[in-house]
């Protein structure tokens, strides 16, 4: 069974708990952007945006690189894989059960049809 790092998940879920940071992730999903561009887009000070980006970097969801005087941010494409896997495990448990239930529902349906036929 896959082991998940508690600290890692804490950091990423905390990062996602803020509307601006979710907005930044969505913006970066459309393409890379500089801190200045992000600050303008979210009508925020440069310092404020730097803090948000730092939280996203800490969570491993975003990377940034300083080229000349501009700091460019990018989405880490594998950043949410672990969280997705976390939900996926629970979903699979139910999907497995429900697939077995499908067979029984099908079985009961056929029996019902047969009974109707006999009457």
């Amino acid at each position, binding site marked *: 069974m896959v082991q998940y790092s*508690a600290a890692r998940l804490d950091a990423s*879920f905390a990062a*996602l708990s803020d509307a601006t940071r979710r907005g930044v992730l969505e913006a970066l999903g459309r393409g890379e952007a500089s801190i200045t561009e992000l600050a303008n887009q979210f009508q925020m000070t440069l310092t404020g945006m730097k803090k948000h980006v730092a939280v996203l970097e800490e969570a491993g969801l975003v990377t940034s690189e300083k080229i000349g005087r501009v700091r460019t941010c990018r989405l880490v494409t594998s950043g949410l894989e672990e969280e*997705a896997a976390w939900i996926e495990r629970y*979903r699979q448990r*139910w999907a497995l059960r*429900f697939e077995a*239930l499908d067979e029984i*529902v099908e079985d009961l*349906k056929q029996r019902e049809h047969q009974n109707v036929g006999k009457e």
Partner: protein
Amino acid sequence: MSAKNETVVTRKSDRELVVTRLFNGPARIVFEAWSKPELFQRWWVPKTLGVPLRACEMDVRTGGGYRLEFGLDAANAMAFYGKYTEVTPHSKIVWTNEEGGEISVTTVTFEDRGGQTLLTLSELYPSKEACDEAIQGSAAGLPGQFEQLDALLVELVA
């Protein structure tokens, strides 16, 4: 034979997980598969899981109780038990899970959708920690941000 229907999981709040799934049969049939022990034990523990259901007692009516025992042998068996607090034939079953000390509540509803059934299962835990633990086991203490995460995953992963 129609394609498999999708099982969808959302975290509704810190304490609540919701699973939805469509079934290709009317609600009275899906309800029957949930409420008759001889049918229930054929699907609740899929064979691929490898752990058999050793005992399955279910008295599916309001005020009734259940006890499920899993395990490869009697010495390593694990019991799950609780009460049915609300049973409305073909539309709703609510039961408690009392084996953990703290009580969690599971609600299943069956909605007819023109020959199909929309099943909604919600697990409400006594605390956020219990909810986290239920799905995760080891890493407790996660903030409940699953709804946002779900929305994001749709955008970012798809």
